[in-house]
């Protein structure tokens, strides 16, 4: 059974998708965090409901609505979301309140909005979707595991469409906390990130991307999802793992026209991609994406959006390319990302 991406909605540091100027040029950030260019949320969400929603929920719900609009669908059959940190702002707010007020007279609203499934829940309420509803939260593998779930559901034939989302937010407080722990590069912007790869640290980002996946191909389909896999710890080398993974989809490295890597500028993590860059895919286009969206747990959602758009338009933006190949046509794209040599995630999508 095939799986097609028939709608996409996104709120990212590069603006919203779909929109006319999306990625015509890169939005520059002189330093982190790379925060989203938010839309007017009232255009998507009833102001009476909006009042209680924190940024995480607004981003999630609005991008889901954008996606459904893009797919021209009102109610999805099932909703699967992924997030690494959930609602950071409300978790911190409730925690601060309970510490400051010594556990007395606490407002319930931040607590109820701090659960990780809050976006999936709100989308269900908004669309009246009573069916399957799930939230994956395993760090940088959360999105690919949510995607795998969606693919399996569609493959059984019990569902003909699934709404799939990936959302994470960054708050100033959380950014500052991690700054103390040297998670981020100091005073390096997104456009300088690649040139500063020889030091530790990356750049923080955030965003929400939703996909409408369907078993049915339509004229407006962006791409076809072929397969996806996550491996916690590699039992073989990167090259062998990738080759075996591709073989399971009857593909070889030579069939991959573009490799989109989760390079994030952190010398302590990027070395894992070296063999991809220098050996396995020496004849493919190689590109990266985290200078567009920043580093966050579900950033591979943004990578999938980028890959889908490339397959549909057959255009690879210059500013993501790390290596060019002689072929112009892009038929198969591999997305590969990992953090700290753990949770290796691979996804293949094809032109449809």
């Amino acid at each position, binding site marked *: 059974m095939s799986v097609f991406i028939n709608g996409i909605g996104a709120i990212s540091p590069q603006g919203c998708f779909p929109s006319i100027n999306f990625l015509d040029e890169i939005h520059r950030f002189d330093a982190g965090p790379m925060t989203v260019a938010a839309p007017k949320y009232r255009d998507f969400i009833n102001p009476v409901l909006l009042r209680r929603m924190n940024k995480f929920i607004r981003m999630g719900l609005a991008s889901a609505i954008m996606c459904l609009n893009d797919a021209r669908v009102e109610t999805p059959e099932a*909703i699967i979301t992924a997030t*690494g*940190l*959930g609602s950071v702002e409300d978790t911190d707010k*409730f*925690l601060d309140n*309970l*510490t400051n007020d*010594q*556990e*007395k007279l*606490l*407002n*319930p609203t931040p*607590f*109820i*909005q*701090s*659960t*990780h*499934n*809050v976006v*999936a*829940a*709100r989308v*269900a*309420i908004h*669309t*009246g*979707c*009573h*069916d*399957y*509803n*799930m*939230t*994956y*939260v*395993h*760090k940088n*593998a*959360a999105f690919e*595991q949510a995607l795998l*779930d969606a693919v*399996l559901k569609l*493959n*059984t034939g019990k569902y003909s469409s699934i709404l799939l989302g990936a959302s994470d937010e960054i708050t100033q407080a959380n950014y500052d*906390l*991690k700054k*103390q*722990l040297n998670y981020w590069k100091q005073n390096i912007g997104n456009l300088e990130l690649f040139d500063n790869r020889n030091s530790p640290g990356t750049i923080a980002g955030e965003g929400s991307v939703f996909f409408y996946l369907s078993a049915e191909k339509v004229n407006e389909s962006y791409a076809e999802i072929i397969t996806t896999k*996550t*491996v*916690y*710890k590699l*039992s073989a080398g990167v090259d062998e793992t990738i080759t075996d993974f591709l073989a399971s989809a009857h593909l070889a490295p030579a069939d991959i026209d573009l490799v989109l890597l989760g390079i994030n500028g952190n010398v302590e993590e990027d070395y894992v991609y070296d063999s991809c860059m220098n050996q396995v895919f020496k004849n493919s286009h190689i590109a990266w994406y985290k200078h567009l969206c920043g580093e966050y*747990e579900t950033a591979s959602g943004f990578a999938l959006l980028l890959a889908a758009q490339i397959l549909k338009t057959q255009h690879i933006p210059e500013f993501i390319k790390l290596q060019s190949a002689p072929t112009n046509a892009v038929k198969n794209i591999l997305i590969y990302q990992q953090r700290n040599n*753990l*949770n290796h995630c691979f996804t293949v999508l094809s032109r449809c």
Partner: protein
Amino acid sequence: MPPKVFVTGIGIVSAIGLNVSENFSSLKSLKHGIGVLKNLRTIHSPSLPSGEVKLSNSELAEILGIRIGPDFSRTALLGMIAAREALQNAGIENNERRKMGIVSATSVGGMDRTELLYRDITPENQNFIASHVCGDSTEKIADFLQITDFVSTISTACSSSLNAIMAGAEMIKNNLLDRVIAGGSDALSKFTLNGFNSLMILDKNHNRPFDAERKGLNLGEGAAYLVLESENAVKGREDKICCELKGYANANDAYHQTASSNNGEGAFRAMSKAIQHGGLNISDIDYINAHGTGTINNDFTEAVALNRLFGKDLPLFSSTKPFTGHTLGAAGVIESVISILTLRNKMIFPNLNFCKPILEMPLVPVTERMENVPIKNVLTNSFGFGGNDSTLIFSAV
């Protein structure tokens, strides 16, 4: 034809015991674990009885035989103990664990560490920050058990661990994995205790599910895991089979962030779809381990849903939360283990503290321990915030 999924090992740690045998013994002798909080330091300790695991973190570490730093949350420690027991019971050796999967659920993650340390970060303790996220406890468990292949974490509030079991089963039914250890863990924390208190749904006394005078829930903590195996993986080890995971379903109430709808729509759908998924009829269900938290809202809406689905053919049912407390992310799997104990021992554990049925929907649960009950199929529910409603069915083989 998707393979059948069998349960070959169970492990549990809760307010009523540190392993399967202790939990069973407590259930059998009607010994509950709800009392004054001793481990968690909070102003609420005398007034909000809870189901605490009766050991400190260092005592838990001793049981595990490990040394721990600030980055070991209580959630991880509880999970490691329960997961280890499940694997040992399934008789799966170290060298066979690499290619296993683990799907674990949690709602609180490492919050028990974070809330203590975040105002007091030092170079010595700062690695607790990495253990805050949900995925960390799963990785700690995976590393402890030497599982390296598929490692996943799910968080859907109170239905989390039933969903983790479902996700593990789906990996097996789709032939992606032969063996998965699935379940969840949640430790008590000031965050959740105060969170539920701000919602005014905690009982200052012992919780009384489905009772007309119920006042709310008691929180609990704990962890439990099931080892799930495909029918192929189990060949030659059939003596390890506890039961079959016969059916399951996940639905959403799509009504309100915390309250359930008056007609129990999500609960009704989860139960009816699970029965259908298992190829069963309503009349095949012999016992239901209800979600039954003791809150005004949940118990009423769950009763409505039970009535809608079963009518006058309502099977025997009880909530075991008066024994363990509401263990949030771990509730589904803890109650799954209790359901499996019911199935294995043909014994139904009562719904403690029940006196009078709910006026608007008068259903009467089992109030005395029942033995030698012919039970083939047990259904268990977990309903969570966000309208996430899940149901599993275990069947004797």
